[in-house]
């Protein structure tokens, strides 16, 4: 029986709409425990989340991170957006003021981890092999095995390059960061709305290439704002360093606040 609303009692049906916008409750509500799958003869309504296995681990990850005072950012973008260069520059700029650990997701190779390790920050590569995104169990495995040893203030997770699935799989992070490059056009947010809706911040990279592109910053911002009215937007060039100050300041402030 759910302690929140009492559903699951014999003969008592439940309609998830009763809970309105209480997403938190809805996620707690749908269990995989065998006792919740006992259905009375005349009762056939269920609300079993097919994401529950991942979400349960994600919640455990979230609790672990909170208990260890770690702010975790899940950085998501398409392949080639400049995530790794952005992280290289971020780590170089912040490592003397903040303790940071990085987990990098790719299907294969250790290329990105090797690149980031040159900054002197602890980095671990996770090869997902056949999966196009990181998931909560993959992160859970590394929290005790790797992250814990360094007692960092910040955990940066560079997700597999993909704008679709990473947005749907909760890792237990404190916040999602969406990265979009100028070379991808201005309408990526409309094409991949879930990520940009969920993001706590959006970073637009490769601003140094704008003079060579038919690309408009106001249009890109307008497209982001149609989905997300609140997330700060950082337009920068990791290569030249232009515009990175605000991004670094935000990241530092959010990690100190521990709430995003």
């Amino acid at each position, binding site marked *: 029986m759910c302690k929140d609303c009492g559903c699951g009692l014999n003969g008592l049906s439940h309609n*998830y*709409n009763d809970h*309105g*916008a209480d*997403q938190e409750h*809805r996620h707690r509500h*749908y269990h*995989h425990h*065998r006792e919740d*799958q*006992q*259905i009375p003869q005349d009762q*056939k*309504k*269920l*609300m*079993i*989340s*097919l*994401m529950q*296995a991942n979400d349960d681990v994600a919640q455990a990850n979230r609790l672990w991170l909170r208990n260890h005072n770690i702010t975790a950012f899940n950085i998501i973008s398409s392949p080639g957006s400049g995530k790794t260069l952005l992280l290289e520059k971020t780590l170089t700029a912040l490592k003397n003021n903040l303790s940071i650990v990085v987990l990098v997701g790719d299907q294969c190779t250790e290329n990105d981890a090797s690149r980031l390790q040159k900054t002197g920050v602890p980095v671990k590569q996770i090869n997902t092999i056949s999966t196009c995104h990181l998931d909560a169990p993959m992160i859970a495995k590394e929290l005790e095995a790797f992250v814990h040893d360094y007692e960092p203030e910040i955990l940066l997770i560079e997700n597999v390059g993909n704008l*679709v*699935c990473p*947005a*749907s799989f909760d890792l237990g992070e404190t916040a999602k960061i969406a990265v979009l490059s100028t070379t991808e056009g201005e309408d990526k947010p*409309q094409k991949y*709305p*879930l990520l940009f*809706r969920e993001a706590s911040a959006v970073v637009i990279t490769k601003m140094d290439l704008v003079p060579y592109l038919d690309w408009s910053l106001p249009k890109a911002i307008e497209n982001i*704002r*149609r*989905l*997300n*009215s609140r997330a700060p937007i950082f337009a920068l060039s990791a290569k030249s360093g232009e515009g990175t100050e605000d991004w670094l300041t935000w990241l530092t402030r959010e990690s100190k606040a521990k709430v995003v």
Partner: protein
Amino acid sequence: MHEIKFVAEILKNLEEIKLINNFTAIKSVEILIGEFSGVDERALVASFQMATHDSIWRDTELKCVLDPLKITCQECGKTSKVIDFDFICSYCKSREVREIGGKGIFIQSISI
């Protein structure tokens, strides 16, 4: 997005439900698909048919119901639909809105 993985999860749940409740068969299973979930109904149905065609679940029908994405406005309190993924209140045009439903994918019900 990962429809075959969701089918595996559906079948795992159906197995457990059938076992725990001593059902002889499950006639159909209804899946609630959030409009914002990234799950494609056609791909889910095709994956289900492919996964079950030569199994004990071959006669179990998969039905899909769309859970539309709606928003509730934090300014005027009204609920409206989301059109073209433009998160704006249809009434007062505020962008201070929160989603209701439209996310996730659930086994909503079964018939036996």
